[in-house]
């Protein structure tokens, strides 16, 4: 086994790990040794091919198809230099004040998060796309919402040099999204932080951890030789995402004294809905996600977002099969798409466990409330499609494969609640939150308000697993803001922690 020695080790290089790395990097000037250990590889620019299956294998754990324990949802968790920031769309929203108030974490204010978020909005070049760069798919979403009087807002995006290839979720071939792979990690490396890719951490102990370096058939090889490593570190910051951070801490034995570890997982269960326009529209060219509708956020617990996906992802999200399914797929250049995000409640029973092979098992049950939200969202999206001129809509809970425009006044009848059944419709999640929630109570939280794991000095968490409840918006900016807090705490405590 190889031995390595650092002062600070950060596990994961996504929104959380990247932000922590950059914020701590100035410590390198004082001789502090910092390493980021990233499970996935650093992809070469030419390896962003736009090939759906290939990129899913390169950017996501289990190709983005990790199943929940009961098999009713798939979970997309990113890996690679930049983590999930490689494969998001760059939508950059700051968590609303009322959400932070619902989180109700003593010592955590919306003002503090907003101020830190502002720093990243600037650092990541967040701005609104000009009108001339919005494609028809996005404009139709806005048009449909406005016709119905629904509130619709434009997403701020973190882009630089976007050419509108439309393949954001497969990794940008032009590196236009300003994720941690473009901004925070290179900045940290310039200061002296080492980023070790293809390095999977298996176990965390007291001021040490065990990891395996194993190269894969794509990306740059790791800067370390392949093999097993024991790495000593006075400060360990876990930023492996909600599922993998929780699983890592659980299999390292921290669950014995932290009963909330892995629990209160929220997922923003998501559906993709499709309407067919009478003519070809620009949909798969241009940035895929320009607008969101929060009309039903408070009343019915869901958000609607414009979106556009690729042939396989689209096919799998349609209910049914056979000739009608093929017919809709062949209408691809006429398809308008809407993504639903249900705002799920944090419940202790929804949790990460460790499977027999040491990997994570996500035990999550879709509640009746969430299923009701998904049902309401299908009906709302169907109205938006028709208001935007769609000739027919595919609703996963529809009584028939298509709801025709002539049936627009029968939506309540055509999309019944009893068809919203887990396992029947395709429900996914790319917003995994909780598992190491912040709080004061040892029974219901894992870290304090600064991301310090209760009763474990030197062990921190800095990713979406800190969220005590769902963020109710796309979460990456909030992850970075919280990671910024954690980094500040580490800087303040560094003298004491590094002297141990």
């Amino acid at each position, binding site marked *: 086994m190889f031995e390595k020695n650092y002062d600070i080790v950060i596990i994961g290089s996504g929104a959380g790990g990247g932000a922590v790395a950059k914020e701590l990097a100035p410590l390198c000037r004082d001789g502090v040794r910092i390493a980021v250990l990233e499970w996935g590889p650093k992809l070469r620019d030419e390896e962003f091919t*736009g*090939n*759906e*299956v290939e990129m899913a*294998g390169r950017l996501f754990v*289990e*190709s983005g*198809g990790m*199943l929940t324990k*009961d*098999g*009713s949802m798939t979970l997309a968790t990113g890996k690679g230099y930049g983590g999930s920031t490689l494969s998001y769309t760059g939508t950059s929203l700051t968590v609303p004040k009322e959400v932070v108030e619902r989180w109700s974490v003593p010592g955590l204010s919306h003002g503090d998060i907003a101020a830190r978020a502002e720093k990243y909005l600037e650092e990541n070049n967040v701005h609104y796309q000009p009108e*001339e*760069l*919005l*494609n028809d798919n996005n404009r139709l979403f806005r048009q449909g919402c406005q016709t119905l009087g629904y509130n619709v807002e434009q997403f701020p995006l973190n882009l630089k040099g*976007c*050419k*509108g*290839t*439309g*393949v954001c979720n497969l990794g940008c*071939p*032009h590196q236009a999204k300003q994720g941690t792979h473009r901004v925070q990690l290179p900045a940290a490396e310039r200061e002296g932080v080492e980023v070790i890719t293809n390095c999977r951490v298996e176990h965390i102990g007291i001021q040490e951890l065990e990891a395996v370096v194993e190269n894969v058939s794509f990306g740059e090889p790791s800067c370390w030789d392949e093999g097993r490593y024991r790495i000593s570190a006075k400060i360990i910051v876990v930023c492996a995402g909600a599922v993998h951070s929780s699983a890592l801490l659980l299999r390292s034995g921290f669950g014995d004294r932290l009963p909330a570890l892995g629990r209160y997982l929220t997922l923003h269960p998501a559906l993709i809905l499709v309407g067919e326009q009478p003519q070809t529209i*620009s949909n*798969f*060219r*241009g940035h895929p996600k320009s607008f969101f509708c929060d009309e039903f956020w408070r009343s019915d617990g869901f958000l609607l977002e414009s979106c556009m996906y*690729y*042939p*396989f992802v*689209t*096919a*799998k999200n349609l*209910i*049914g*099969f*056979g*000739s009608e*399914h*093929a017919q809709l*797929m*062949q*209408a*691809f*250049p006429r398809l308008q798409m809407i993504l639903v995000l249900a705002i799920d409640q944090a419940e202790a029973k929804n949790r990460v466990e460790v499977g027999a*092979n040491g990997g994570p098992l996500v035990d999550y049950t879709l509640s009746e409330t969430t299923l009701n939200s998904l049902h309401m969202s299908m009906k709302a999206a169907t109205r938006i499609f028709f208001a935007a001129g769609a000739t027919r809509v595919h609703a996963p809970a529809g009584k028939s494969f298509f709801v025709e425009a002539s049936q627009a006044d029968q939506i309540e009848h055509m999309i019944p609640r009893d068809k919203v*059944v*887990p*396992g*029947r419709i*395709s429900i996914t999640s790319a917003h995994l939150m909780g598992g190491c929630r912040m709080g004061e109570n040892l029974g219901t939280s894992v870290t304090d308000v600064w991301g310090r794991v209760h009763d474990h000095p030197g062990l921190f968490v800095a990713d979406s697993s800190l969220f005590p409840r769902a963020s109710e918006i796309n979460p990456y900016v909030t992850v970075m803001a919280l990671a910024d807090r954690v980094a500040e705490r580490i800087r303040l405590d560094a003298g004491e922690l590094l002297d141990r």
Partner: protein
Amino acid sequence: MKNLNDQSVRRLEIIAAVIVPGFSSLDHDRRQRFLTIIDDALGERPESMQRQLALFLRVLEVAPYFRWGRPLGRLDSARAESALLWFQEAPIAKLRQGFWGLKTLVFMGYYGQNAAWPEVGYSQNFGGGDV
């Protein structure tokens, strides 16, 4: 194939032809690519899941005996669709989820190939500037 045996391949092809009508007219290369994509996807998953898939394929093949006295591969297309539809709408969650997973694999093998793009009118232009 590393993870699909001959029997599973045969059953998978019968089911794929019902799920995606265009499957029957795929040329040899695309059919092989279809199988390879699915085989690779299975390789990323636990062996227990591979065994479950093999069993589920067998169940789907023989289940129509109970209604029509024939296996799935010997039904006309309307009855074959009807048989699979029963699994999609099944009252038992495990059956619905199993069918959803199988259907997802078939769509991955079929639409996950760049060669399927012209058929659906999808394309990519990395030069950008189209909007």
